[in-house]
Protein backbone atom coordinates (compact mmCIF):
# COMPACT_ATOMS: atom_id res chain seq x y z
CA UNK A 1 0.00 0.00 0.00
CA UNK A 2 2.72 2.46 0.98
CA UNK A 3 4.59 1.61 -2.16
CA UNK A 4 1.66 2.60 -4.34
CA UNK A 5 1.26 5.89 -2.52
CA UNK A 6 4.91 6.65 -2.84
CA UNK A 7 4.85 5.85 -6.51
CA UNK A 8 1.79 8.00 -7.02
CA UNK A 9 3.29 11.06 -5.36
CA UNK A 10 6.48 10.45 -7.21
CA UNK A 11 4.55 10.48 -10.45
CA UNK A 12 2.93 13.79 -9.57
CA UNK A 13 6.26 15.38 -8.75
CA UNK A 14 7.71 14.13 -11.97
CA UNK A 15 4.90 15.57 -14.00
CA UNK A 16 5.23 18.94 -12.30
CA UNK A 17 8.94 19.24 -12.88
CA UNK A 18 9.22 17.39 -16.15
CA UNK A 19 9.27 20.51 -18.28
CA UNK A 20 12.10 22.07 -16.35
CA UNK A 21 14.04 18.82 -16.23
CA UNK A 22 13.85 18.27 -19.94
CA UNK A 23 15.02 21.77 -20.61
CA UNK A 24 18.05 21.49 -18.39
CA UNK A 25 19.23 18.40 -20.27
CA UNK A 26 19.59 20.63 -23.32
CA UNK A 27 22.60 22.17 -21.57
CA UNK A 28 24.50 18.94 -22.22
CA UNK A 29 23.88 19.44 -25.92
CA UNK A 30 25.38 22.92 -25.88
CA UNK A 31 29.07 22.09 -26.52
CA UNK A 32 28.08 19.68 -29.25
CA UNK A 33 25.72 22.16 -30.84
CA UNK A 34 28.35 24.91 -30.91
CA UNK A 35 31.05 22.60 -32.27
CA UNK A 36 28.75 21.28 -35.00
CA UNK A 37 27.71 24.78 -35.89
CA UNK A 38 31.32 25.86 -36.38
CA UNK A 39 32.69 22.78 -38.12
CA UNK A 40 29.73 21.37 -40.07
CA UNK A 41 26.80 23.75 -40.44
CA UNK A 42 28.62 27.00 -41.24
CA UNK A 43 31.13 25.45 -43.67
CA UNK A 44 28.39 23.47 -45.37
CA UNK A 45 26.16 26.52 -45.84
CA UNK A 46 29.17 28.51 -47.03
CA UNK A 47 30.01 25.82 -49.55
CA UNK A 48 26.45 25.72 -50.84
CA UNK A 49 26.36 29.51 -51.04
CA UNK A 50 29.70 29.69 -52.84
CA UNK A 51 28.43 27.23 -55.45
CA UNK A 52 26.18 30.06 -56.72
CA UNK A 53 29.14 32.43 -57.17
CA UNK A 54 32.23 32.56 -59.33
CA UNK A 55 34.52 32.96 -56.32
CA UNK A 56 38.18 32.12 -56.83
CA UNK A 57 39.21 32.05 -53.17
CA UNK A 58 40.15 35.73 -52.85
CA UNK A 59 38.13 38.93 -52.80
CA UNK A 60 34.36 39.19 -52.58
CA UNK A 61 32.42 36.39 -54.24
CA UNK A 62 30.17 37.61 -57.02
CA UNK A 63 26.72 36.14 -57.44
CA UNK A 64 26.51 33.99 -60.53
CA UNK A 65 23.17 32.31 -60.03
CA UNK A 66 22.99 28.87 -61.57
CA UNK A 67 25.88 29.50 -63.96
CA UNK A 68 28.13 26.88 -62.32
CA UNK A 69 25.41 24.25 -62.49
CA UNK A 70 24.73 25.07 -66.13
CA UNK A 71 28.44 24.69 -66.90
CA UNK A 72 28.40 21.32 -65.11
CA UNK A 73 25.71 20.03 -67.43
CA UNK A 74 27.97 20.50 -70.45
CA UNK A 75 31.23 19.52 -68.75
CA UNK A 76 32.31 16.13 -70.07
CA UNK A 77 34.92 15.85 -67.30
CA UNK A 78 32.16 16.16 -64.71
CA UNK A 79 30.00 13.50 -66.36
CA UNK A 80 32.99 11.20 -66.75
CA UNK A 81 33.78 11.52 -63.04
CA UNK A 82 30.23 10.55 -62.10
CA UNK A 83 30.25 7.70 -64.60
CA UNK A 84 33.40 6.42 -62.89
CA UNK A 85 31.51 6.71 -59.59
CA UNK A 86 29.17 4.00 -60.85
CA UNK A 87 32.18 1.76 -61.42
CA UNK A 88 33.29 2.54 -57.87
CA UNK A 89 29.85 1.52 -56.58
CA UNK A 90 30.28 -1.82 -58.37
CA UNK A 91 33.76 -2.24 -56.86
CA UNK A 92 32.98 -1.07 -53.34
CA UNK A 93 29.32 -1.97 -52.83
CA UNK A 94 28.04 -4.58 -55.29
CA UNK A 95 31.00 -6.95 -55.52
CA UNK A 96 32.04 -6.84 -51.83
CA UNK A 97 28.43 -7.37 -50.70
CA UNK A 98 27.87 -10.41 -52.90
CA UNK A 99 31.30 -11.94 -52.34
CA UNK A 100 31.22 -11.00 -48.65
CA UNK A 101 27.86 -12.70 -48.25
CA UNK A 102 29.02 -15.95 -49.84
CA UNK A 103 32.30 -15.90 -47.91
CA UNK A 104 30.55 -15.10 -44.63
CA UNK A 105 28.09 -17.95 -45.10
CA UNK A 106 30.88 -20.32 -46.08
CA UNK A 107 33.04 -19.32 -43.11
CA UNK A 108 30.14 -19.36 -40.67
CA UNK A 109 28.27 -22.53 -41.40
CA UNK A 110 30.86 -24.52 -43.28
CA UNK A 111 34.31 -23.78 -41.91
CA UNK A 112 32.94 -22.91 -38.48
CA UNK A 113 30.98 -26.15 -38.26
CA UNK A 114 33.37 -28.62 -39.83
CA UNK A 115 36.73 -27.20 -38.83
CA UNK A 116 36.03 -25.17 -35.68
CA UNK A 117 35.44 -21.50 -35.06
CA UNK A 118 39.19 -20.79 -34.73
CA UNK A 119 39.67 -21.44 -38.43
CA UNK A 120 36.75 -19.18 -39.23
CA UNK A 121 38.14 -16.41 -37.00
CA UNK A 122 41.63 -16.56 -38.50
CA UNK A 123 40.31 -16.51 -42.06
CA UNK A 124 37.98 -13.64 -41.20
CA UNK A 125 40.93 -11.69 -39.78
CA UNK A 126 42.84 -12.12 -43.06
CA UNK A 127 39.93 -10.75 -45.08
CA UNK A 128 39.44 -7.85 -42.68
CA UNK A 129 43.10 -6.79 -42.52
CA UNK A 130 43.05 -4.35 -45.49
CA UNK A 131 40.21 -2.44 -43.80
CA UNK A 132 42.45 -1.13 -41.02
CA UNK A 133 45.15 -0.02 -43.43
CA UNK A 134 45.31 3.71 -44.23
CA UNK A 135 44.19 4.08 -47.84
CA UNK A 136 47.36 6.02 -48.60
CA UNK A 137 49.44 3.03 -47.53
CA UNK A 138 47.25 0.58 -49.45
CA UNK A 139 47.81 2.83 -52.46
CA UNK A 140 51.59 2.70 -52.09
CA UNK A 141 51.53 -1.08 -51.78
CA UNK A 142 49.36 -1.58 -54.83
CA UNK A 143 50.89 1.02 -57.11
CA UNK A 144 54.19 -0.75 -56.56
CA UNK A 145 52.70 -4.18 -57.18
CA UNK A 146 50.93 -2.92 -60.31
CA UNK A 147 53.92 -0.97 -61.57
CA UNK A 148 54.82 -1.37 -65.26
CA UNK A 149 58.11 -3.06 -66.08
CA UNK A 150 59.15 -5.12 -63.11
CA UNK A 151 56.15 -4.68 -60.83
CA UNK A 152 55.29 -7.79 -58.85
CA UNK A 153 52.18 -8.63 -60.81
CA UNK A 154 53.96 -8.40 -64.14
CA UNK A 155 56.89 -10.42 -62.80
CA UNK A 156 54.49 -13.03 -61.50
CA UNK A 157 52.77 -13.27 -64.88
CA UNK A 158 56.14 -13.72 -66.55
CA UNK A 159 57.18 -16.36 -64.03
CA UNK A 160 54.11 -18.49 -64.76
CA UNK A 161 54.53 -18.11 -68.50
CA UNK A 162 51.84 -15.52 -69.11
CA UNK A 163 54.28 -12.80 -70.08
CA UNK A 164 51.98 -11.63 -72.86
CA UNK A 165 49.40 -10.63 -70.25
CA UNK A 166 51.72 -8.01 -68.78
CA UNK A 167 50.19 -4.56 -68.66
CA UNK A 168 50.83 -1.05 -67.53
CA UNK A 169 48.04 -1.63 -65.02
CA UNK A 170 47.64 1.93 -63.77
CA UNK A 171 49.06 3.77 -66.77
CA UNK A 172 46.91 2.38 -69.57
CA UNK A 173 43.70 4.45 -69.92
CA UNK A 174 41.76 1.34 -70.96
CA UNK A 175 42.78 -0.67 -67.91
CA UNK A 176 43.49 1.84 -65.12
CA UNK A 177 39.87 2.12 -63.97
CA UNK A 178 39.58 -1.66 -63.60
CA UNK A 179 42.86 -1.82 -61.71
CA UNK A 180 41.62 0.81 -59.26
CA UNK A 181 38.38 -1.15 -58.91
CA UNK A 182 40.33 -4.30 -58.12
CA UNK A 183 42.28 -2.54 -55.38
CA UNK A 184 39.05 -1.17 -53.92
CA UNK A 185 37.43 -4.62 -53.83
CA UNK A 186 40.47 -5.82 -51.89
CA UNK A 187 40.17 -2.85 -49.51
CA UNK A 188 36.44 -3.09 -48.96
CA UNK A 189 35.69 -6.82 -48.80
CA UNK A 190 36.37 -7.19 -45.06
CA UNK A 191 33.60 -4.82 -43.98
CA UNK A 192 30.59 -6.73 -45.37
CA UNK A 193 32.19 -10.02 -44.37
CA UNK A 194 32.47 -9.04 -40.71
CA UNK A 195 28.99 -7.51 -40.57
CA UNK A 196 27.43 -10.57 -42.22
CA UNK A 197 29.25 -13.00 -39.96
CA UNK A 198 27.96 -11.12 -36.93
CA UNK A 199 24.46 -11.11 -38.43
CA UNK A 200 24.53 -14.84 -39.02
CA UNK A 201 24.99 -15.42 -35.30
CA UNK A 202 21.47 -14.10 -34.81
CA UNK A 203 19.97 -16.77 -37.03
CA UNK A 204 18.34 -19.62 -35.16
CA UNK A 205 20.50 -22.73 -35.77
CA UNK A 206 17.37 -24.89 -35.61
CA UNK A 207 16.30 -23.42 -38.95
CA UNK A 208 19.41 -24.85 -40.58
CA UNK A 209 19.09 -28.16 -38.79
CA UNK A 210 15.50 -28.53 -39.87
CA UNK A 211 16.39 -27.66 -43.47
CA UNK A 212 19.32 -30.07 -43.41
CA UNK A 213 17.06 -32.86 -42.16
CA UNK A 214 14.69 -32.07 -45.01
CA UNK A 215 17.59 -32.65 -47.36
CA UNK A 216 18.23 -29.06 -48.40
CA UNK A 217 21.75 -28.59 -49.75
CA UNK A 218 24.10 -25.72 -48.88
CA UNK A 219 22.97 -23.53 -51.75
CA UNK A 220 19.28 -23.93 -50.94
CA UNK A 221 19.85 -23.22 -47.27
CA UNK A 222 21.83 -20.14 -48.27
CA UNK A 223 19.03 -18.87 -50.53
CA UNK A 224 16.06 -19.68 -48.35
CA UNK A 225 17.40 -19.14 -44.84
CA UNK A 226 20.58 -17.08 -44.82
CA UNK A 227 19.55 -14.44 -47.35
CA UNK A 228 16.12 -13.58 -45.90
CA UNK A 229 17.40 -13.74 -42.32
CA UNK A 230 20.16 -11.19 -42.74
CA UNK A 231 18.31 -8.81 -45.02
CA UNK A 232 18.63 -5.88 -42.57
CA UNK A 233 22.42 -6.27 -42.56
CA UNK A 234 22.43 -6.42 -46.34
CA UNK A 235 20.72 -3.05 -46.59
CA UNK A 236 23.05 -1.50 -44.02
CA UNK A 237 26.10 -2.81 -45.86
CA UNK A 238 24.84 -1.74 -49.27
CA UNK A 239 24.01 1.77 -48.03
CA UNK A 240 27.30 2.32 -46.24
CA UNK A 241 29.39 0.86 -49.05
CA UNK A 242 27.61 2.90 -51.71
CA UNK A 243 28.20 6.07 -49.71
CA UNK A 244 31.86 5.12 -49.24
CA UNK A 245 32.14 4.44 -52.99
CA UNK A 246 30.74 7.86 -53.86
CA UNK A 247 33.26 9.46 -51.51
CA UNK A 248 36.36 7.65 -52.82
CA UNK A 249 39.27 10.05 -52.81
CA UNK A 250 42.46 8.70 -51.21
CA UNK A 251 42.75 5.63 -53.43
CA UNK A 252 42.45 7.68 -56.60
CA UNK A 253 44.84 10.34 -55.31
CA UNK A 254 47.53 7.84 -54.45
CA UNK A 255 47.09 5.31 -57.26
CA UNK A 256 46.44 7.42 -60.36
CA UNK A 257 45.73 11.07 -59.50
CA UNK A 258 42.65 10.68 -61.66
CA UNK A 259 44.69 9.76 -64.67
CA UNK A 260 45.79 8.73 -67.16
CA UNK A 261 43.98 11.46 -69.01
CA UNK A 262 41.08 11.55 -66.56
CA UNK A 263 40.39 7.83 -67.00
CA UNK A 264 39.98 7.32 -63.26
CA UNK A 265 38.71 10.74 -62.19
CA UNK A 266 35.94 10.64 -59.56
CA UNK A 267 33.73 13.49 -58.24
CA UNK A 268 35.61 13.98 -54.98
CA UNK A 269 38.96 14.11 -56.76
CA UNK A 270 37.49 16.35 -59.45
CA UNK A 271 36.19 18.81 -56.85
CA UNK A 272 39.52 18.65 -54.99
CA UNK A 273 41.52 19.65 -58.07
CA UNK A 274 38.95 22.29 -59.00
CA UNK A 275 39.25 23.78 -55.49
CA UNK A 276 42.96 23.63 -54.93
CA UNK A 277 44.69 23.33 -58.30
CA UNK A 278 42.44 25.33 -60.61
CA UNK A 279 41.18 27.47 -57.68
CA UNK A 280 37.74 27.68 -59.29
CA UNK A 281 36.18 27.58 -55.85
CA UNK A 282 32.64 28.35 -56.99
CA UNK A 283 32.73 25.56 -59.57
CA UNK A 284 34.31 23.10 -57.13
CA UNK A 285 31.60 23.94 -54.61
CA UNK A 286 28.95 23.18 -57.22
CA UNK A 287 30.54 19.78 -57.94
CA UNK A 288 30.67 18.92 -54.22
CA UNK A 289 27.08 20.11 -53.73
CA UNK A 290 25.85 17.76 -56.47
CA UNK A 291 27.83 14.97 -54.82
CA UNK A 292 26.26 15.81 -51.45
CA UNK A 293 22.74 15.73 -52.88
CA UNK A 294 23.37 12.31 -54.43
CA UNK A 295 24.86 10.93 -51.21
CA UNK A 296 21.95 12.25 -49.14
CA UNK A 297 19.49 10.66 -51.57
CA UNK A 298 21.30 7.32 -51.35
CA UNK A 299 21.35 7.49 -47.53
CA UNK A 300 17.66 8.32 -47.42
CA UNK A 301 16.68 5.43 -49.69
CA UNK A 302 19.01 3.09 -47.82
CA UNK A 303 17.55 4.10 -44.47
CA UNK A 304 14.01 3.52 -45.74
CA UNK A 305 14.82 0.00 -46.90
CA UNK A 306 16.65 -0.69 -43.67
CA UNK A 307 13.81 0.36 -41.36
CA UNK A 308 11.32 -1.51 -43.53
CA UNK A 309 13.40 -4.69 -43.31
CA UNK A 310 13.74 -4.29 -39.55
CA UNK A 311 10.00 -3.70 -39.13
CA UNK A 312 9.25 -6.78 -41.21
CA UNK A 313 11.59 -8.79 -39.03
CA UNK A 314 9.96 -7.50 -35.85
CA UNK A 315 6.54 -8.56 -37.15
CA UNK A 316 7.83 -12.02 -37.99
CA UNK A 317 9.42 -12.31 -34.59
CA UNK A 318 6.26 -11.05 -32.89
CA UNK A 319 4.21 -13.63 -34.75
CA UNK A 320 6.57 -16.37 -33.73
CA UNK A 321 6.41 -15.69 -29.99
Amino acid at each position, binding site marked *: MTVTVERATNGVCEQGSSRRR*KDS*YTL*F*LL*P*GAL*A*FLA*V*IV*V*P*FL*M*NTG*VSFTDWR*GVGTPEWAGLANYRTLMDDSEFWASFRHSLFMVVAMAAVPTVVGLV*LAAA*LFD*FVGKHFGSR*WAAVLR*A*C*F*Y*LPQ*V*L*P*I*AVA*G*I*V*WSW*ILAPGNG*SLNELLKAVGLGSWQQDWLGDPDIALYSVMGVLV*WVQLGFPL*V*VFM*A*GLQRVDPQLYEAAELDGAGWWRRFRHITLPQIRP*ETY*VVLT*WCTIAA*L*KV*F*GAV*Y*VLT*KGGPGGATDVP*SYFSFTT*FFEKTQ*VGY*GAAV*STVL*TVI*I*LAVSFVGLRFQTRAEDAEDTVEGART
Partner: protein
Amino acid sequence: MTTAPRRYPVLIALVLAALFMVVPFLIVAVNAVKSPAEYSANGPLGLPEGLYLDGIKDFWERVDFGRKLVNSTLISGSVAVLAVVLSVLNAYAIGIGRIRGRTWVLAFFVLANVLPQEALVYPVYYLSKQVGLYDTRLSVIIVFTVIQAAFGTYLLSSVLGQFPREVIEAARIDGANKWQVLWRIVVPVSRPTLGVLLVFFFIWTWNEFLLPLVMLISNDNQTVSVALGVLQGQRLMDATMTNAAALLGVLPALVFFLVFQRTLTRGIAVGAVK
Protein backbone atom coordinates in the same frame (compact mmCIF):
# COMPACT_ATOMS: atom_id res chain seq x y z
CA MET B 1 26.07 -34.34 -44.14
CA THR B 2 28.90 -33.33 -46.40
CA THR B 3 31.48 -35.99 -46.94
CA ALA B 4 35.10 -35.42 -46.04
CA PRO B 5 36.54 -35.40 -49.57
CA ARG B 6 34.17 -32.60 -50.53
CA ARG B 7 34.96 -30.53 -47.46
CA TYR B 8 38.61 -29.91 -48.07
CA PRO B 9 38.39 -28.28 -51.52
CA VAL B 10 36.15 -25.59 -50.02
CA LEU B 11 38.53 -24.99 -47.14
CA ILE B 12 41.49 -24.86 -49.52
CA ALA B 13 39.69 -22.37 -51.76
CA LEU B 14 38.93 -20.16 -48.76
CA VAL B 15 42.49 -20.37 -47.49
CA LEU B 16 43.79 -19.42 -50.94
CA ALA B 17 41.41 -16.45 -51.06
CA ALA B 18 42.55 -15.37 -47.58
CA LEU B 19 46.15 -15.76 -48.69
CA PHE B 20 45.47 -13.50 -51.65
CA MET B 21 44.33 -10.83 -49.18
CA VAL B 22 47.55 -10.95 -47.16
CA VAL B 23 50.03 -11.61 -49.99
CA PRO B 24 50.54 -7.87 -50.69
CA PHE B 25 51.66 -7.43 -47.08
CA LEU B 26 54.10 -10.31 -47.39
CA ILE B 27 55.57 -9.06 -50.68
CA VAL B 28 56.10 -5.65 -49.12
CA ALA B 29 57.78 -7.07 -46.04
CA VAL B 30 60.05 -9.30 -48.14
CA ASN B 31 61.15 -6.48 -50.44
CA ALA B 32 61.66 -3.92 -47.72
CA VAL B 33 64.58 -5.95 -46.38
CA LYS B 34 66.32 -6.43 -49.75
CA SER B 35 69.24 -4.30 -50.82
CA PRO B 36 68.79 -2.29 -54.04
CA ALA B 37 71.39 -4.46 -55.79
CA GLU B 38 69.59 -7.61 -54.76
CA TYR B 39 66.28 -6.13 -55.88
CA SER B 40 67.53 -5.25 -59.33
CA ALA B 41 69.22 -8.63 -59.71
CA ASN B 42 66.37 -10.89 -58.57
CA GLY B 43 63.28 -8.74 -59.00
CA PRO B 44 60.42 -8.39 -56.52
CA LEU B 45 59.55 -12.08 -56.24
CA GLY B 46 62.85 -13.56 -55.04
CA LEU B 47 63.39 -14.29 -51.38
CA PRO B 48 65.80 -11.94 -49.58
CA GLU B 49 69.30 -13.30 -49.08
CA GLY B 50 69.93 -11.38 -45.90
CA LEU B 51 68.38 -8.76 -43.71
CA TYR B 52 69.11 -5.34 -45.21
CA LEU B 53 67.67 -2.65 -43.00
CA ASP B 54 69.45 0.42 -44.39
CA GLY B 55 66.57 1.13 -46.78
CA ILE B 56 64.17 1.40 -43.88
CA LYS B 57 66.64 3.46 -41.87
CA ASP B 58 67.29 5.85 -44.78
CA PHE B 59 63.60 6.32 -45.38
CA TRP B 60 62.92 6.86 -41.67
CA GLU B 61 65.53 9.62 -41.52
CA ARG B 62 64.63 11.20 -44.84
CA VAL B 63 60.98 11.75 -44.00
CA ASP B 64 61.56 12.16 -40.27
CA PHE B 65 59.16 9.28 -39.72
CA GLY B 66 59.34 9.46 -35.93
CA ARG B 67 57.88 12.93 -36.10
CA LYS B 68 55.03 11.74 -38.34
CA LEU B 69 54.25 8.94 -35.90
CA VAL B 70 54.12 11.44 -33.04
CA ASN B 71 51.81 13.72 -35.06
CA SER B 72 49.48 10.88 -36.03
CA THR B 73 49.37 9.56 -32.48
CA LEU B 74 48.77 12.98 -31.00
CA ILE B 75 46.02 13.86 -33.46
CA SER B 76 44.26 10.47 -33.38
CA GLY B 77 44.58 10.15 -29.61
CA SER B 78 43.18 13.61 -28.90
CA VAL B 79 40.37 13.14 -31.40
CA ALA B 80 39.43 9.75 -29.94
CA VAL B 81 39.16 11.08 -26.39
CA LEU B 82 37.49 14.40 -27.23
CA ALA B 83 35.04 12.85 -29.68
CA VAL B 84 33.99 10.24 -27.12
CA VAL B 85 33.41 12.99 -24.52
CA LEU B 86 31.39 15.04 -27.01
CA SER B 87 29.38 11.99 -28.09
CA VAL B 88 28.61 11.12 -24.47
CA LEU B 89 27.35 14.62 -23.71
CA ASN B 90 25.17 14.69 -26.84
CA ALA B 91 23.86 11.19 -26.33
CA TYR B 92 23.11 11.87 -22.66
CA ALA B 93 20.80 14.72 -23.66
CA ILE B 94 19.21 12.75 -26.50
CA GLY B 95 19.08 9.18 -25.19
CA ILE B 96 18.51 9.74 -21.47
CA GLY B 97 17.36 13.35 -21.22
CA ARG B 98 14.96 12.75 -24.11
CA ILE B 99 14.98 16.44 -24.92
CA ARG B 100 12.18 17.76 -27.06
CA GLY B 101 12.69 17.43 -30.80
CA ARG B 102 15.30 14.70 -30.25
CA THR B 103 14.32 12.87 -33.43
CA TRP B 104 15.27 15.95 -35.43
CA VAL B 105 18.47 16.46 -33.48
CA LEU B 106 19.39 12.84 -34.12
CA ALA B 107 18.51 13.16 -37.81
CA PHE B 108 20.86 16.12 -37.94
CA PHE B 109 23.73 14.03 -36.55
CA VAL B 110 23.03 11.25 -39.04
CA LEU B 111 23.13 13.83 -41.84
CA ALA B 112 26.39 15.25 -40.55
CA ASN B 113 27.70 11.72 -40.56
CA VAL B 114 27.11 10.98 -44.25
CA LEU B 115 28.04 14.44 -45.51
CA PRO B 116 31.04 14.18 -47.87
CA GLN B 117 34.09 16.04 -46.61
CA GLU B 118 34.39 17.63 -50.05
CA ALA B 119 31.38 19.78 -49.15
CA LEU B 120 33.23 21.12 -46.09
CA VAL B 121 36.83 21.15 -47.11
CA TYR B 122 37.16 24.51 -48.80
CA PRO B 123 35.28 26.57 -46.19
CA VAL B 124 37.15 24.75 -43.41
CA TYR B 125 40.42 25.56 -45.17
CA TYR B 126 39.40 29.19 -45.71
CA LEU B 127 38.01 29.76 -42.20
CA SER B 128 40.99 28.12 -40.50
CA LYS B 129 43.24 30.54 -42.39
CA GLN B 130 41.09 33.43 -41.14
CA VAL B 131 41.42 32.41 -37.51
CA GLY B 132 45.08 31.45 -37.74
CA LEU B 133 44.61 27.71 -37.32
CA TYR B 134 45.69 26.69 -40.83
CA ASP B 135 48.53 24.17 -40.89
CA THR B 136 48.20 23.36 -37.21
CA ARG B 137 47.50 19.97 -35.73
CA LEU B 138 44.87 21.62 -33.54
CA SER B 139 42.73 22.45 -36.59
CA VAL B 140 42.64 18.80 -37.65
CA ILE B 141 41.89 17.72 -34.07
CA ILE B 142 38.92 20.09 -33.86
CA VAL B 143 37.46 19.11 -37.22
CA PHE B 144 37.75 15.37 -36.68
CA THR B 145 36.48 15.54 -33.11
CA VAL B 146 33.23 16.88 -34.53
CA ILE B 147 33.09 14.55 -37.53
CA GLN B 148 33.70 11.42 -35.42
CA ALA B 149 31.28 12.65 -32.73
CA ALA B 150 28.54 12.69 -35.36
CA PHE B 151 28.79 8.92 -35.61
CA GLY B 152 29.37 8.53 -31.87
CA THR B 153 26.27 10.53 -31.00
CA TYR B 154 24.16 8.50 -33.40
CA LEU B 155 25.37 5.18 -32.00
CA LEU B 156 25.43 6.13 -28.31
CA SER B 157 22.00 7.76 -28.37
CA SER B 158 20.38 4.46 -29.27
CA VAL B 159 22.51 2.60 -26.73
CA LEU B 160 21.67 5.05 -23.94
CA GLY B 161 18.01 5.07 -24.99
CA GLN B 162 17.86 1.53 -23.61
CA PHE B 163 19.63 2.42 -20.38
CA PRO B 164 17.64 1.08 -17.37
CA ARG B 165 15.69 4.09 -16.15
CA GLU B 166 15.22 2.69 -12.62
CA VAL B 167 18.95 3.05 -12.04
CA ILE B 168 18.88 6.71 -12.96
CA GLU B 169 15.71 7.38 -10.98
CA ALA B 170 17.23 5.68 -7.93
CA ALA B 171 20.34 7.82 -8.12
CA ARG B 172 18.23 10.95 -8.55
CA ILE B 173 16.21 10.09 -5.46
CA ASP B 174 19.47 9.62 -3.56
CA GLY B 175 20.24 13.22 -4.41
CA ALA B 176 22.65 12.90 -7.33
CA ASN B 177 22.40 15.71 -9.85
CA LYS B 178 22.46 15.13 -13.62
CA TRP B 179 26.17 15.69 -13.87
CA GLN B 180 26.88 13.11 -11.16
CA VAL B 181 24.48 10.61 -12.74
CA LEU B 182 26.36 11.01 -16.01
CA TRP B 183 29.90 10.54 -14.69
CA ARG B 184 29.24 8.12 -11.83
CA ILE B 185 26.60 5.88 -13.39
CA VAL B 186 26.05 6.27 -17.13
CA VAL B 187 29.70 6.48 -18.17
CA PRO B 188 30.96 3.54 -16.04
CA VAL B 189 28.07 1.32 -17.13
CA SER B 190 28.56 2.14 -20.83
CA ARG B 191 32.32 1.64 -20.69
CA PRO B 192 32.41 -1.28 -23.19
CA THR B 193 30.63 0.75 -25.86
CA LEU B 194 32.81 3.77 -25.16
CA GLY B 195 35.87 1.59 -25.52
CA VAL B 196 34.73 0.42 -28.94
CA LEU B 197 34.15 4.03 -30.00
CA LEU B 198 37.56 5.09 -28.70
CA VAL B 199 39.33 2.43 -30.76
CA PHE B 200 37.30 3.22 -33.86
CA PHE B 201 37.82 6.97 -33.65
CA PHE B 202 41.54 6.45 -33.18
CA ILE B 203 41.93 4.21 -36.22
CA TRP B 204 39.56 6.20 -38.44
CA THR B 205 41.39 9.42 -37.65
CA TRP B 206 44.75 7.73 -38.19
CA ASN B 207 43.60 6.67 -41.66
CA GLU B 208 42.00 9.99 -42.72
CA PHE B 209 43.45 11.50 -45.83
CA LEU B 210 41.63 14.37 -47.58
CA LEU B 211 41.29 16.92 -44.78
CA PRO B 212 44.76 16.36 -43.26
CA LEU B 213 46.19 16.58 -46.80
CA VAL B 214 44.61 20.00 -47.25
CA MET B 215 45.17 21.31 -43.74
CA LEU B 216 48.68 20.10 -42.92
CA ILE B 217 51.13 21.36 -45.50
CA SER B 218 54.32 21.74 -43.51
CA ASN B 219 56.48 18.68 -43.03
CA ASP B 220 56.55 19.11 -39.27
CA ASN B 221 52.79 18.77 -38.88
CA GLN B 222 52.01 15.99 -41.33
CA THR B 223 50.54 12.65 -40.33
CA VAL B 224 51.85 9.27 -41.49
CA SER B 225 49.05 8.93 -44.06
CA VAL B 226 49.57 12.37 -45.56
CA ALA B 227 53.37 12.12 -45.66
CA LEU B 228 53.26 8.74 -47.40
CA GLY B 229 50.45 9.77 -49.75
CA VAL B 230 52.25 12.92 -50.83
CA LEU B 231 55.54 11.08 -51.36
CA GLN B 232 53.76 8.48 -53.47
CA GLY B 233 51.99 11.20 -55.44
CA GLN B 234 55.32 12.82 -56.30
CA ARG B 235 56.61 9.53 -57.76
CA LEU B 236 60.10 10.23 -56.49
CA MET B 237 60.69 6.97 -54.65
CA ASP B 238 62.70 4.04 -55.95
CA ALA B 239 61.59 0.47 -55.31
CA THR B 240 63.45 -0.03 -52.04
CA MET B 241 62.24 3.25 -50.65
CA THR B 242 58.65 2.54 -51.70
CA ASN B 243 58.77 -0.74 -49.86
CA ALA B 244 60.30 0.81 -46.79
CA ALA B 245 57.53 3.42 -46.87
CA ALA B 246 54.85 0.79 -47.32
CA LEU B 247 56.22 -1.41 -44.54
CA LEU B 248 56.46 1.50 -42.10
CA GLY B 249 52.93 2.50 -43.04
CA VAL B 250 51.60 -1.03 -42.62
CA LEU B 251 53.25 -1.73 -39.26
CA PRO B 252 51.21 0.62 -37.04
CA ALA B 253 47.99 -0.57 -38.68
CA LEU B 254 49.06 -4.16 -38.07
CA VAL B 255 49.78 -3.40 -34.42
CA PHE B 256 46.35 -1.77 -33.95
CA PHE B 257 44.76 -4.69 -35.70
CA LEU B 258 46.39 -7.32 -33.51
CA VAL B 259 45.77 -5.37 -30.31
CA PHE B 260 42.18 -4.41 -31.03
CA GLN B 261 41.00 -7.25 -33.26
CA ARG B 262 38.21 -8.34 -30.94
CA THR B 263 37.00 -4.81 -30.33
CA LEU B 264 37.08 -4.07 -34.05
CA THR B 265 35.09 -7.03 -35.26
CA ARG B 266 32.58 -6.77 -32.43
CA GLY B 267 32.33 -3.02 -32.86
CA ILE B 268 31.55 -3.10 -36.57
CA ALA B 269 28.71 -5.46 -35.86
CA VAL B 270 27.32 -3.16 -33.16
CA GLY B 271 27.70 -0.09 -35.35
CA ALA B 272 26.06 -1.68 -38.35
CA VAL B 273 23.07 -3.15 -36.58
CA LYS B 274 22.26 -0.08 -34.50
